[in-house]
Protein backbone atom coordinates (compact mmCIF):
# COMPACT_ATOMS: atom_id res chain seq x y z
CA UNK A 1 0.00 0.00 0.00
CA UNK A 2 1.57 3.31 -1.07
CA UNK A 3 2.20 5.66 1.87
CA UNK A 4 0.22 8.75 1.07
CA UNK A 5 2.03 11.76 -0.31
CA UNK A 6 3.14 13.16 3.01
CA UNK A 7 4.59 16.64 3.25
CA UNK A 8 8.12 15.70 4.32
CA UNK A 9 10.17 18.33 6.01
CA UNK A 10 13.31 19.20 4.02
CA UNK A 11 15.41 19.39 7.17
CA UNK A 12 14.63 15.76 7.74
CA UNK A 13 16.35 14.82 4.43
CA UNK A 14 19.17 17.33 4.20
CA UNK A 15 21.41 15.66 6.73
CA UNK A 16 24.98 14.37 6.39
CA UNK A 17 23.93 10.71 6.47
CA UNK A 18 21.51 11.31 3.62
CA UNK A 19 24.14 12.92 1.40
CA UNK A 20 24.25 11.26 -2.00
CA UNK A 21 26.37 13.60 -4.05
CA UNK A 22 28.52 16.64 -3.36
CA UNK A 23 31.23 18.58 -5.17
CA UNK A 24 34.64 16.88 -4.65
CA UNK A 25 36.87 18.50 -2.02
CA UNK A 26 39.75 18.30 -4.51
CA UNK A 27 38.12 21.02 -6.60
CA UNK A 28 39.06 24.48 -5.42
CA UNK A 29 35.92 26.26 -4.29
CA UNK A 30 35.80 28.90 -6.97
CA UNK A 31 33.54 29.47 -9.93
CA UNK A 32 34.65 27.94 -13.24
CA UNK A 33 35.23 30.54 -15.90
CA UNK A 34 34.02 28.08 -18.54
CA UNK A 35 30.93 28.87 -20.60
CA UNK A 36 27.57 27.50 -19.42
CA UNK A 37 27.33 23.78 -20.21
CA UNK A 38 30.98 23.38 -21.22
CA UNK A 39 32.42 19.88 -21.00
CA UNK A 40 35.69 21.19 -19.53
CA UNK A 41 33.89 21.89 -16.27
CA UNK A 42 32.39 18.42 -16.18
CA UNK A 43 35.73 16.75 -16.82
CA UNK A 44 37.42 18.86 -14.14
CA UNK A 45 34.72 17.74 -11.72
CA UNK A 46 34.78 14.02 -12.45
CA UNK A 47 38.57 13.90 -12.59
CA UNK A 48 38.84 15.49 -9.18
CA UNK A 49 36.19 13.08 -7.91
CA UNK A 50 38.51 10.26 -8.97
CA UNK A 51 41.50 11.95 -7.32
CA UNK A 52 39.51 12.34 -4.10
CA UNK A 53 38.24 8.76 -4.15
CA UNK A 54 41.73 7.37 -4.86
CA UNK A 55 43.18 9.63 -2.15
CA UNK A 56 46.05 10.76 -4.38
CA UNK A 57 45.68 14.55 -4.17
CA UNK A 58 49.10 14.84 -2.50
CA UNK A 59 50.86 12.53 -4.94
CA UNK A 60 49.89 14.19 -8.19
CA UNK A 61 51.31 16.85 -10.49
CA UNK A 62 49.30 18.17 -13.41
CA UNK A 63 50.25 20.14 -16.49
CA UNK A 64 47.82 22.67 -17.90
CA UNK A 65 47.89 23.61 -21.59
CA UNK A 66 47.17 26.82 -23.42
CA UNK A 67 43.53 27.05 -24.42
CA UNK A 68 40.25 27.36 -22.53
CA UNK A 69 41.64 25.07 -19.84
CA UNK A 70 44.82 27.11 -19.39
CA UNK A 71 43.32 28.06 -16.02
CA UNK A 72 42.80 24.44 -14.96
CA UNK A 73 45.21 25.11 -12.12
CA UNK A 74 42.78 27.62 -10.63
CA UNK A 75 40.39 24.71 -10.11
CA UNK A 76 42.30 21.47 -9.65
CA UNK A 77 43.65 21.47 -6.11
CA UNK A 78 46.86 19.61 -6.91
CA UNK A 79 50.39 20.82 -7.69
CA UNK A 80 50.40 22.01 -11.27
CA UNK A 81 52.58 23.54 -13.93
CA UNK A 82 51.36 25.64 -16.82
CA UNK A 83 53.04 24.63 -20.10
CA UNK A 84 53.63 26.58 -23.29
CA UNK A 85 51.06 25.85 -26.00
CA UNK A 86 51.51 22.27 -27.17
CA UNK A 87 54.36 21.40 -24.84
CA UNK A 88 52.46 19.80 -21.97
CA UNK A 89 53.59 16.26 -22.77
CA UNK A 90 57.26 17.35 -22.79
CA UNK A 91 56.81 19.20 -19.49
CA UNK A 92 55.06 16.15 -18.06
CA UNK A 93 57.92 13.96 -19.26
CA UNK A 94 60.35 16.13 -17.33
CA UNK A 95 58.21 15.87 -14.20
CA UNK A 96 57.50 12.14 -14.39
CA UNK A 97 61.11 11.24 -15.07
CA UNK A 98 62.15 13.20 -11.98
CA UNK A 99 59.30 12.00 -9.77
CA UNK A 100 58.47 8.52 -11.08
CA UNK A 101 56.34 7.55 -8.10
CA UNK A 102 53.97 10.51 -8.47
CA UNK A 103 50.88 10.55 -10.65
CA UNK A 104 51.51 12.92 -13.54
CA UNK A 105 48.85 14.06 -15.99
CA UNK A 106 48.37 16.62 -18.71
CA UNK A 107 45.07 18.22 -19.53
CA UNK A 108 44.96 19.41 -23.12
CA UNK A 109 42.57 20.62 -25.81
CA UNK A 110 42.60 19.42 -29.42
CA UNK A 111 44.70 22.31 -30.74
CA UNK A 112 47.22 22.02 -27.91
CA UNK A 113 47.58 18.25 -28.18
CA UNK A 114 47.17 17.53 -31.88
CA UNK A 115 48.19 20.70 -33.72
CA UNK A 116 51.12 22.62 -32.22
CA UNK A 117 51.75 19.85 -29.69
CA UNK A 118 51.46 16.94 -32.09
CA UNK A 119 55.14 16.09 -32.08
CA UNK A 120 55.51 16.37 -28.30
CA UNK A 121 52.44 14.23 -27.74
CA UNK A 122 53.46 11.67 -30.36
CA UNK A 123 56.94 11.25 -28.93
CA UNK A 124 55.83 11.13 -25.30
CA UNK A 125 53.48 8.35 -26.40
CA UNK A 126 56.20 6.63 -28.36
CA UNK A 127 58.58 6.78 -25.41
CA UNK A 128 55.81 5.18 -23.39
CA UNK A 129 55.97 7.97 -20.82
CA UNK A 130 54.05 6.79 -17.81
CA UNK A 131 51.63 9.72 -17.80
CA UNK A 132 47.89 10.29 -18.22
CA UNK A 133 46.89 12.63 -21.02
CA UNK A 134 43.36 13.99 -20.76
CA UNK A 135 42.45 15.14 -24.25
CA UNK A 136 39.36 17.33 -24.63
CA UNK A 137 38.24 17.08 -28.24
CA UNK A 138 35.60 19.70 -29.06
CA UNK A 139 36.72 20.06 -32.66
CA UNK A 140 37.41 23.78 -32.36
CA UNK A 141 39.74 26.34 -30.82
CA UNK A 142 37.73 27.63 -27.87
CA UNK A 143 39.72 30.33 -26.11
CA UNK A 144 40.70 32.11 -29.32
CA UNK A 145 36.99 32.00 -30.19
CA UNK A 146 36.21 29.48 -32.79
CA UNK A 147 38.95 28.64 -35.26
CA UNK A 148 39.32 25.29 -37.01
CA UNK A 149 41.13 22.61 -35.01
CA UNK A 150 42.91 19.48 -36.22
CA UNK A 151 39.80 17.57 -35.12
CA UNK A 152 37.32 19.86 -36.85
CA UNK A 153 35.33 17.48 -39.02
CA UNK A 154 34.63 17.83 -42.71
CA UNK A 155 32.06 20.47 -43.50
CA UNK A 156 32.13 21.93 -39.99
CA UNK A 157 31.91 25.73 -39.97
CA UNK A 158 34.46 27.62 -37.90
CA UNK A 159 35.91 31.12 -38.14
CA UNK A 160 38.76 29.76 -40.25
CA UNK A 161 36.61 27.36 -42.23
CA UNK A 162 33.68 29.75 -42.67
CA UNK A 163 32.25 27.70 -45.56
CA UNK A 164 32.77 24.41 -43.79
CA UNK A 165 36.05 22.48 -43.51
CA UNK A 166 37.16 21.51 -47.01
CA UNK A 167 39.47 18.55 -46.67
CA UNK A 168 41.02 19.07 -50.08
CA UNK A 169 42.57 22.35 -48.99
CA UNK A 170 42.43 22.15 -45.18
CA UNK A 171 43.32 18.54 -44.58
CA UNK A 172 41.44 15.81 -42.79
CA UNK A 173 40.23 15.67 -39.19
CA UNK A 174 42.87 13.94 -37.08
CA UNK A 175 42.04 10.94 -34.91
CA UNK A 176 44.97 11.18 -32.53
CA UNK A 177 43.96 8.26 -30.33
CA UNK A 178 43.86 5.88 -33.27
CA UNK A 179 47.11 7.39 -34.54
CA UNK A 180 49.09 6.50 -31.43
CA UNK A 181 47.25 3.35 -30.34
CA UNK A 182 49.54 0.98 -32.31
CA UNK A 183 52.67 2.35 -30.60
CA UNK A 184 54.06 -0.21 -28.16
CA UNK A 185 54.67 2.49 -25.53
CA UNK A 186 50.98 3.31 -25.47
CA UNK A 187 49.10 1.30 -22.86
CA UNK A 188 45.56 2.67 -22.85
CA UNK A 189 43.61 4.74 -25.36
CA UNK A 190 39.93 5.36 -24.89
CA UNK A 191 37.43 7.84 -26.16
CA UNK A 192 34.64 8.97 -23.86
CA UNK A 193 32.22 11.86 -23.58
CA UNK A 194 30.40 13.84 -20.89
CA UNK A 195 27.26 14.86 -22.81
CA UNK A 196 24.93 12.41 -20.99
CA UNK A 197 24.80 11.15 -17.41
CA UNK A 198 25.70 7.62 -18.48
CA UNK A 199 28.70 8.86 -20.46
CA UNK A 200 29.86 11.01 -17.55
CA UNK A 201 29.90 7.89 -15.40
CA UNK A 202 31.85 5.98 -18.04
CA UNK A 203 34.32 8.83 -18.55
CA UNK A 204 34.97 8.92 -14.81
CA UNK A 205 35.60 5.17 -14.81
CA UNK A 206 38.03 5.53 -17.72
CA UNK A 207 39.97 8.28 -15.91
CA UNK A 208 40.26 6.08 -12.86
CA UNK A 209 41.45 3.09 -14.91
CA UNK A 210 44.07 5.26 -16.59
CA UNK A 211 45.47 6.35 -13.22
CA UNK A 212 45.54 2.74 -12.05
CA UNK A 213 47.41 1.73 -15.20
CA UNK A 214 49.87 4.58 -14.52
CA UNK A 215 50.38 3.24 -10.98
CA UNK A 216 51.24 -0.15 -12.52
CA UNK A 217 53.73 1.58 -14.80
CA UNK A 218 52.10 0.28 -17.96
CA UNK A 219 52.95 3.34 -20.05
CA UNK A 220 51.22 6.18 -21.88
CA UNK A 221 47.49 6.55 -21.26
CA UNK A 222 45.25 8.78 -23.37
CA UNK A 223 41.69 9.49 -22.31
CA UNK A 224 40.00 11.47 -25.07
CA UNK A 225 36.76 13.21 -24.19
CA UNK A 226 34.59 14.22 -27.13
CA UNK A 227 33.09 17.41 -25.81
CA UNK A 228 31.06 20.47 -26.71
CA UNK A 229 31.70 24.15 -27.27
CA UNK A 230 28.36 25.92 -27.00
CA UNK A 231 29.72 29.44 -27.47
CA UNK A 232 31.83 28.83 -30.54
CA UNK A 233 29.44 26.36 -32.09
CA UNK A 234 26.81 29.07 -31.49
CA UNK A 235 24.44 26.60 -29.86
CA UNK A 236 22.73 26.28 -26.52
CA UNK A 237 24.31 23.72 -24.19
CA UNK A 238 21.42 21.31 -24.90
CA UNK A 239 21.84 21.74 -28.69
CA UNK A 240 25.60 21.38 -28.42
CA UNK A 241 25.25 18.03 -26.69
CA UNK A 242 22.89 16.93 -29.46
CA UNK A 243 25.58 17.92 -31.94
CA UNK A 244 28.09 15.85 -29.97
CA UNK A 245 25.68 12.91 -30.16
CA UNK A 246 24.56 13.23 -33.78
CA UNK A 247 27.60 14.68 -35.54
CA UNK A 248 30.83 14.29 -33.56
CA UNK A 249 30.37 10.84 -32.09
CA UNK A 250 29.55 9.19 -35.43
CA UNK A 251 32.95 10.42 -36.65
CA UNK A 252 34.70 9.93 -33.28
CA UNK A 253 33.08 6.70 -32.00
CA UNK A 254 33.23 6.24 -28.23
CA UNK A 255 34.81 3.29 -26.48
CA UNK A 256 38.15 1.73 -25.69
CA UNK A 257 40.62 1.82 -28.58
CA UNK A 258 43.45 0.06 -26.76
CA UNK A 259 43.42 -1.62 -23.38
CA UNK A 260 46.46 -3.19 -21.69
CA UNK A 261 46.13 -6.83 -20.66
CA UNK A 262 46.34 -6.66 -16.92
CA UNK A 263 46.89 -9.93 -15.09
CA UNK A 264 44.08 -10.01 -12.45
Amino acid at each position, binding site marked *: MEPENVDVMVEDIVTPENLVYRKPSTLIDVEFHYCPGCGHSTVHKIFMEVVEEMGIQ*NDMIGVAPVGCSVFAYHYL*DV*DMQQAPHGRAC*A*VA*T*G*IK*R*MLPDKYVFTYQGDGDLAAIGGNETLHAANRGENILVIFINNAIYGMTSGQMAPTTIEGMVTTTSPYGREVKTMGYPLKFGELIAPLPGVAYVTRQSVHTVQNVRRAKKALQRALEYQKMGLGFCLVEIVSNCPSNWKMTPIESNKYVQNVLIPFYPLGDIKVPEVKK
Partner: protein
Amino acid sequence: MGEVRLMKGNEALAEAAIRAGVDAYFGYPITPQSEVIEYLSREATKRTGMLVLQAESEIGAINMIYGAAGCGKKAMSTSSSPGISLMQEGLSYIASAELPCLVANINRGGPGLGTIQPAQGDYFQAVKGGGHGDYRLLVLAPYNVQEMADFVKLGFELAFKYRNPVMILADGALGQMMEKVELPPQEPRVHIEYPWATTGKPKDGPRRVITSLHIEPEKMEEINLRLQAKYKKMEEEEVRYQAKNLEDAEYIFTAFGLVSRIALKAMDLGRQKGYKIGWIRPITLFPFPKKIFAEVSEKVKGILDVEMNSGQMVEDVKLAVCGNTRVEFYGRMGGVIPTPDEILAYFEKMFIKGE
Protein backbone atom coordinates in the same frame (compact mmCIF):
# COMPACT_ATOMS: atom_id res chain seq x y z
CA MET B 1 94.78 19.69 -7.19
CA GLY B 2 91.79 17.83 -8.63
CA GLU B 3 91.96 15.14 -11.25
CA VAL B 4 93.56 16.51 -14.40
CA ARG B 5 92.70 15.23 -17.84
CA LEU B 6 93.15 16.17 -21.46
CA MET B 7 89.59 16.60 -22.73
CA LYS B 8 87.43 18.13 -25.45
CA GLY B 9 85.42 21.12 -24.28
CA ASN B 10 82.13 19.32 -24.90
CA GLU B 11 83.23 16.31 -22.87
CA ALA B 12 84.69 18.44 -20.08
CA LEU B 13 81.31 20.16 -19.82
CA ALA B 14 79.55 16.78 -19.72
CA GLU B 15 81.92 15.39 -17.09
CA ALA B 16 81.48 18.54 -15.01
CA ALA B 17 77.70 18.09 -15.17
CA ILE B 18 78.00 14.60 -13.73
CA ARG B 19 80.32 15.87 -11.01
CA ALA B 20 78.02 18.81 -10.20
CA GLY B 21 75.28 16.34 -9.26
CA VAL B 22 73.05 17.36 -12.14
CA ASP B 23 69.76 15.44 -12.10
CA ALA B 24 68.74 15.56 -15.74
CA TYR B 25 70.07 16.34 -19.20
CA PHE B 26 67.56 16.65 -22.02
CA GLY B 27 69.17 17.14 -25.41
CA TYR B 28 69.13 16.66 -29.12
CA PRO B 29 71.97 15.96 -31.52
CA ILE B 30 73.45 18.93 -33.37
CA THR B 31 76.98 19.57 -34.52
CA PRO B 32 79.31 20.85 -33.07
CA GLN B 33 78.17 19.67 -29.62
CA SER B 34 76.76 16.17 -29.94
CA GLU B 35 79.63 14.82 -27.85
CA VAL B 36 77.90 16.15 -24.73
CA ILE B 37 74.90 13.83 -24.98
CA GLU B 38 77.08 10.99 -26.24
CA TYR B 39 79.46 11.32 -23.27
CA LEU B 40 76.60 11.61 -20.81
CA SER B 41 74.84 8.61 -22.37
CA ARG B 42 77.97 6.54 -21.68
CA GLU B 43 78.83 7.85 -18.24
CA ALA B 44 76.10 9.70 -16.41
CA THR B 45 73.35 7.28 -15.51
CA LYS B 46 75.59 4.50 -14.32
CA ARG B 47 77.66 6.85 -12.17
CA THR B 48 75.06 9.04 -10.51
CA GLY B 49 71.68 7.90 -11.81
CA MET B 50 71.47 11.19 -13.67
CA LEU B 51 68.79 11.07 -16.35
CA VAL B 52 69.99 11.51 -19.92
CA LEU B 53 67.12 11.76 -22.38
CA GLN B 54 67.31 12.50 -26.09
CA ALA B 55 64.18 14.46 -26.87
CA GLU B 56 62.23 14.68 -30.11
CA SER B 57 63.54 18.18 -30.69
CA GLU B 58 65.09 21.08 -28.81
CA ILE B 59 61.53 22.27 -28.24
CA GLY B 60 60.84 19.00 -26.43
CA ALA B 61 64.11 19.25 -24.53
CA ILE B 62 63.65 22.76 -23.15
CA ASN B 63 60.11 21.94 -22.02
CA MET B 64 61.29 18.78 -20.31
CA ILE B 65 63.74 21.04 -18.48
CA TYR B 66 60.80 23.27 -17.49
CA GLY B 67 59.01 20.28 -15.97
CA ALA B 68 62.06 18.91 -14.17
CA ALA B 69 63.19 22.34 -12.92
CA GLY B 70 59.66 22.87 -11.67
CA CYS B 71 60.26 19.91 -9.37
CA GLY B 72 63.37 21.62 -7.95
CA LYS B 73 65.76 19.44 -9.92
CA LYS B 74 69.05 20.44 -11.59
CA ALA B 75 68.10 20.17 -15.25
CA MET B 76 70.16 21.20 -18.23
CA SER B 77 70.68 21.00 -21.95
CA THR B 78 73.27 21.90 -24.52
CA SER B 79 72.72 22.70 -28.16
CA SER B 80 74.04 24.88 -30.95
CA SER B 81 72.61 28.01 -32.58
CA PRO B 82 69.70 26.55 -34.62
CA GLY B 83 68.73 24.34 -31.67
CA ILE B 84 69.05 27.24 -29.26
CA SER B 85 66.68 29.22 -31.48
CA LEU B 86 64.09 26.46 -30.97
CA MET B 87 64.53 26.80 -27.21
CA GLN B 88 63.79 30.51 -27.03
CA GLU B 89 60.09 30.12 -26.29
CA GLY B 90 60.83 27.69 -23.50
CA LEU B 91 63.54 29.94 -22.03
CA SER B 92 61.10 32.87 -21.94
CA TYR B 93 58.59 30.70 -20.02
CA ILE B 94 61.29 29.41 -17.68
CA ALA B 95 62.50 32.95 -16.94
CA SER B 96 58.95 34.19 -16.40
CA ALA B 97 58.02 31.25 -14.17
CA GLU B 98 61.31 31.86 -12.32
CA LEU B 99 62.77 28.38 -12.65
CA PRO B 100 66.48 27.52 -12.41
CA CYS B 101 68.20 25.70 -15.27
CA LEU B 102 71.36 25.68 -17.36
CA VAL B 103 71.57 25.72 -21.14
CA ALA B 104 74.80 25.85 -23.12
CA ASN B 105 74.98 27.22 -26.65
CA ILE B 106 77.98 25.90 -28.53
CA ASN B 107 77.63 28.70 -31.08
CA ARG B 108 78.19 27.86 -34.75
CA GLY B 109 78.31 30.00 -37.90
CA GLY B 110 74.98 31.37 -39.04
CA PRO B 111 72.42 32.61 -39.76
CA GLY B 112 70.20 29.83 -41.02
CA LEU B 113 71.72 26.41 -41.24
CA GLY B 114 75.04 28.21 -41.49
CA THR B 115 78.14 26.18 -40.82
CA ILE B 116 79.55 23.99 -38.08
CA GLN B 117 82.53 26.27 -37.53
CA PRO B 118 82.79 28.35 -34.36
CA ALA B 119 81.08 31.74 -34.27
CA GLN B 120 79.63 34.30 -31.86
CA GLY B 121 76.65 35.45 -33.88
CA ASP B 122 74.23 34.44 -31.11
CA TYR B 123 75.44 37.13 -28.66
CA PHE B 124 72.38 39.34 -29.09
CA GLN B 125 70.03 36.34 -28.82
CA ALA B 126 71.75 35.22 -25.61
CA VAL B 127 72.24 38.58 -23.95
CA LYS B 128 69.29 40.67 -25.06
CA GLY B 129 66.77 37.85 -24.64
CA GLY B 130 66.03 35.76 -27.72
CA GLY B 131 62.49 34.92 -26.74
CA HIS B 132 59.47 37.10 -26.13
CA GLY B 133 59.07 39.59 -23.31
CA ASP B 134 61.36 41.43 -20.94
CA TYR B 135 63.63 38.83 -19.49
CA ARG B 136 67.32 38.13 -19.33
CA LEU B 137 69.51 35.07 -19.12
CA LEU B 138 72.60 35.24 -16.97
CA VAL B 139 75.21 34.49 -19.61
CA LEU B 140 78.67 33.07 -18.92
CA ALA B 141 81.29 33.03 -21.71
CA PRO B 142 84.08 30.47 -21.19
CA TYR B 143 87.33 30.99 -23.06
CA ASN B 144 88.96 27.60 -22.52
CA VAL B 145 88.15 23.98 -21.76
CA GLN B 146 88.75 24.60 -18.05
CA GLU B 147 85.94 27.15 -17.95
CA MET B 148 83.71 24.88 -20.06
CA ALA B 149 83.89 22.59 -17.02
CA ASP B 150 83.93 25.23 -14.25
CA PHE B 151 80.90 27.13 -15.53
CA VAL B 152 78.56 24.15 -15.10
CA LYS B 153 78.74 24.19 -11.30
CA LEU B 154 78.87 27.99 -11.23
CA GLY B 155 75.96 28.14 -13.68
CA PHE B 156 73.72 26.00 -11.50
CA GLU B 157 74.67 27.93 -8.35
CA LEU B 158 73.65 31.17 -10.05
CA ALA B 159 70.54 29.58 -11.58
CA PHE B 160 69.26 28.45 -8.18
CA LYS B 161 70.41 31.63 -6.42
CA TYR B 162 68.32 33.74 -8.79
CA ARG B 163 65.79 31.10 -9.93
CA ASN B 164 66.60 32.08 -13.47
CA PRO B 165 67.93 30.25 -16.52
CA VAL B 166 71.68 30.56 -16.98
CA MET B 167 73.35 30.20 -20.36
CA ILE B 168 76.90 29.17 -21.15
CA LEU B 169 77.74 30.85 -24.48
CA ALA B 170 80.68 28.99 -25.98
CA ASP B 171 81.47 28.12 -29.59
CA GLY B 172 82.30 25.19 -31.82
CA ALA B 173 86.05 25.47 -31.31
CA LEU B 174 85.80 25.49 -27.52
CA GLY B 175 83.53 22.49 -27.86
CA GLN B 176 85.82 20.52 -30.11
CA MET B 177 89.34 21.50 -28.95
CA MET B 178 91.20 19.46 -26.38
CA GLU B 179 92.99 21.06 -23.46
CA LYS B 180 94.15 20.19 -19.99
CA VAL B 181 91.32 20.49 -17.49
CA GLU B 182 91.32 20.10 -13.72
CA LEU B 183 88.02 18.42 -12.87
CA PRO B 184 85.92 19.35 -9.81
CA PRO B 185 85.21 16.72 -7.09
CA GLN B 186 82.09 14.58 -7.41
CA GLU B 187 79.10 16.07 -5.62
CA PRO B 188 76.21 13.79 -4.67
CA ARG B 189 72.83 14.20 -6.37
CA VAL B 190 70.54 15.47 -3.65
CA HIS B 191 66.78 16.02 -3.59
CA ILE B 192 65.95 19.36 -2.02
CA GLU B 193 62.30 20.19 -1.29
CA TYR B 194 61.90 23.77 -2.44
CA PRO B 195 58.66 25.42 -1.26
CA TRP B 196 57.88 26.54 -4.79
CA ALA B 197 58.50 23.15 -6.44
CA THR B 198 55.64 20.95 -7.66
CA THR B 199 56.39 17.66 -5.96
CA GLY B 200 52.82 16.90 -4.86
CA LYS B 201 50.52 19.14 -2.82
CA PRO B 202 51.64 19.16 0.82
CA LYS B 203 49.07 17.73 3.22
CA ASP B 204 49.30 20.76 5.45
CA GLY B 205 49.58 23.53 2.91
CA PRO B 206 48.31 24.97 -0.36
CA ARG B 207 49.16 23.44 -3.72
CA ARG B 208 52.01 24.85 -5.70
CA VAL B 209 51.46 26.32 -9.15
CA ILE B 210 54.21 27.14 -11.61
CA THR B 211 52.93 29.44 -14.28
CA SER B 212 53.84 32.47 -16.33
CA LEU B 213 50.24 33.38 -17.08
CA HIS B 214 48.84 36.42 -15.29
CA ILE B 215 45.83 37.86 -17.05
CA GLU B 216 45.56 41.00 -14.89
CA PRO B 217 48.12 43.49 -16.26
CA GLU B 218 48.95 44.82 -12.80
CA LYS B 219 49.87 41.30 -11.71
CA MET B 220 51.96 40.75 -14.86
CA GLU B 221 53.71 44.05 -14.24
CA GLU B 222 54.39 42.96 -10.67
CA ILE B 223 56.07 39.82 -12.03
CA ASN B 224 58.09 41.94 -14.45
CA LEU B 225 59.19 44.32 -11.70
CA ARG B 226 60.35 41.33 -9.68
CA LEU B 227 62.33 40.01 -12.65
CA GLN B 228 63.89 43.43 -13.29
CA ALA B 229 64.92 43.69 -9.64
CA LYS B 230 66.56 40.29 -10.02
CA TYR B 231 68.52 41.43 -13.07
CA LYS B 232 69.56 44.61 -11.25
CA LYS B 233 70.90 42.47 -8.41
CA MET B 234 72.80 40.36 -10.93
CA GLU B 235 74.35 43.54 -12.32
CA GLU B 236 75.39 44.58 -8.83
CA GLU B 237 76.72 41.23 -7.64
CA GLU B 238 77.56 38.89 -10.49
CA VAL B 239 79.69 40.84 -12.94
CA ARG B 240 82.81 38.87 -13.87
CA TYR B 241 85.60 39.85 -16.23
CA GLN B 242 89.33 39.48 -16.65
CA ALA B 243 91.75 42.28 -17.48
CA LYS B 244 95.47 42.65 -18.24
CA ASN B 245 97.87 45.58 -18.63
CA LEU B 246 95.29 48.21 -17.81
CA GLU B 247 97.78 50.18 -15.71
CA ASP B 248 99.68 51.73 -18.60
CA ALA B 249 97.24 50.96 -21.39
CA GLU B 250 96.69 53.58 -24.08
CA TYR B 251 94.48 51.22 -26.05
CA ILE B 252 92.32 48.27 -25.08
CA PHE B 253 91.61 45.07 -26.96
CA THR B 254 88.36 43.48 -25.83
CA ALA B 255 86.71 40.24 -26.85
CA PHE B 256 84.82 37.36 -25.21
CA GLY B 257 85.24 33.63 -25.31
CA LEU B 258 87.71 32.05 -27.73
CA VAL B 259 88.40 35.33 -29.52
CA SER B 260 89.67 36.88 -26.28
CA ARG B 261 92.64 34.48 -26.43
CA ILE B 262 93.39 35.54 -30.00
CA ALA B 263 93.12 39.17 -28.90
CA LEU B 264 95.51 38.36 -26.02
CA LYS B 265 98.06 37.17 -28.53
CA ALA B 266 97.46 40.24 -30.68
CA MET B 267 98.09 42.38 -27.57
CA ASP B 268 101.39 40.63 -26.96
CA LEU B 269 102.45 41.17 -30.57
CA GLY B 270 101.45 44.83 -30.24
CA ARG B 271 103.35 45.19 -26.97
CA GLN B 272 106.44 43.83 -28.70
CA LYS B 273 106.03 46.67 -31.22
CA GLY B 274 105.80 49.13 -28.35
CA TYR B 275 102.08 49.73 -28.40
CA LYS B 276 100.66 50.08 -24.88
CA ILE B 277 97.70 47.79 -25.27
CA GLY B 278 95.51 46.50 -22.41
CA TRP B 279 93.01 43.64 -22.55
CA ILE B 280 89.56 43.11 -21.12
CA ARG B 281 87.63 39.88 -21.37
CA PRO B 282 84.00 40.01 -20.25
CA ILE B 283 83.14 36.65 -18.63
CA THR B 284 79.55 37.49 -17.77
CA LEU B 285 77.96 38.82 -20.94
CA PHE B 286 74.91 39.58 -18.90
CA PRO B 287 75.45 41.26 -16.51
CA PHE B 288 77.86 43.14 -18.77
CA PRO B 289 80.97 44.62 -17.03
CA LYS B 290 80.05 48.24 -17.73
CA LYS B 291 82.09 49.83 -14.91
CA ILE B 292 85.50 48.70 -16.07
CA PHE B 293 84.82 49.96 -19.59
CA ALA B 294 83.57 53.27 -18.21
CA GLU B 295 86.73 53.58 -16.11
CA VAL B 296 89.25 52.75 -18.85
CA SER B 297 87.39 54.92 -21.35
CA GLU B 298 88.51 57.96 -19.32
CA LYS B 299 92.19 57.03 -19.77
CA VAL B 300 92.67 55.31 -23.14
CA LYS B 301 92.74 56.65 -26.69
CA GLY B 302 90.66 53.84 -28.08
CA ILE B 303 89.15 50.40 -27.71
CA LEU B 304 89.19 47.68 -30.36
CA ASP B 305 86.44 45.10 -29.95
CA VAL B 306 86.99 41.81 -31.78
CA GLU B 307 84.28 39.23 -32.37
CA MET B 308 83.29 36.37 -34.65
CA ASN B 309 80.16 38.14 -35.82
CA SER B 310 79.15 41.43 -37.43
CA GLY B 311 79.64 43.43 -34.22
CA GLN B 312 77.33 42.69 -31.33
CA MET B 313 79.15 42.98 -27.98
CA VAL B 314 80.68 46.18 -29.37
CA GLU B 315 77.30 47.84 -28.87
CA ASP B 316 77.43 47.08 -25.17
CA VAL B 317 81.00 48.35 -25.05
CA LYS B 318 79.87 51.59 -26.67
CA LEU B 319 77.00 51.92 -24.22
CA ALA B 320 79.42 51.52 -21.34
CA VAL B 321 82.00 53.88 -22.86
CA CYS B 322 79.30 56.40 -23.62
CA GLY B 323 81.39 58.33 -26.11
CA ASN B 324 84.36 58.89 -23.80
CA THR B 325 86.74 57.33 -26.30
CA ARG B 326 86.82 55.80 -29.75
CA VAL B 327 85.47 52.27 -30.07
CA GLU B 328 86.30 50.34 -33.20
CA PHE B 329 85.25 46.85 -34.24
CA TYR B 330 86.98 44.06 -36.11
CA GLY B 331 85.09 40.87 -36.92
CA ARG B 332 84.99 37.76 -39.06
CA MET B 333 81.74 35.98 -39.82
CA GLY B 334 80.44 32.70 -41.16
CA GLY B 335 82.69 30.66 -38.93
CA VAL B 336 85.98 32.20 -40.02
CA ILE B 337 88.38 32.62 -37.07
CA PRO B 338 90.39 35.88 -37.01
CA THR B 339 94.17 35.67 -36.54
CA PRO B 340 96.28 37.76 -34.14
CA ASP B 341 98.13 39.39 -37.04
CA GLU B 342 95.01 40.60 -38.81
CA ILE B 343 93.71 42.02 -35.52
CA LEU B 344 96.95 43.89 -34.94
CA ALA B 345 97.03 45.07 -38.55
CA TYR B 346 93.50 46.47 -38.24
CA PHE B 347 94.45 48.12 -34.94
CA GLU B 348 97.40 49.79 -36.56
CA LYS B 349 95.33 50.93 -39.50
CA MET B 350 92.56 52.40 -37.33
CA PHE B 351 94.55 53.81 -34.43
CA ILE B 352 98.21 54.13 -35.28
CA LYS B 353 98.31 55.14 -38.93
CA GLY B 354 95.37 57.37 -38.34
CA GLU B 355 97.41 59.50 -35.93
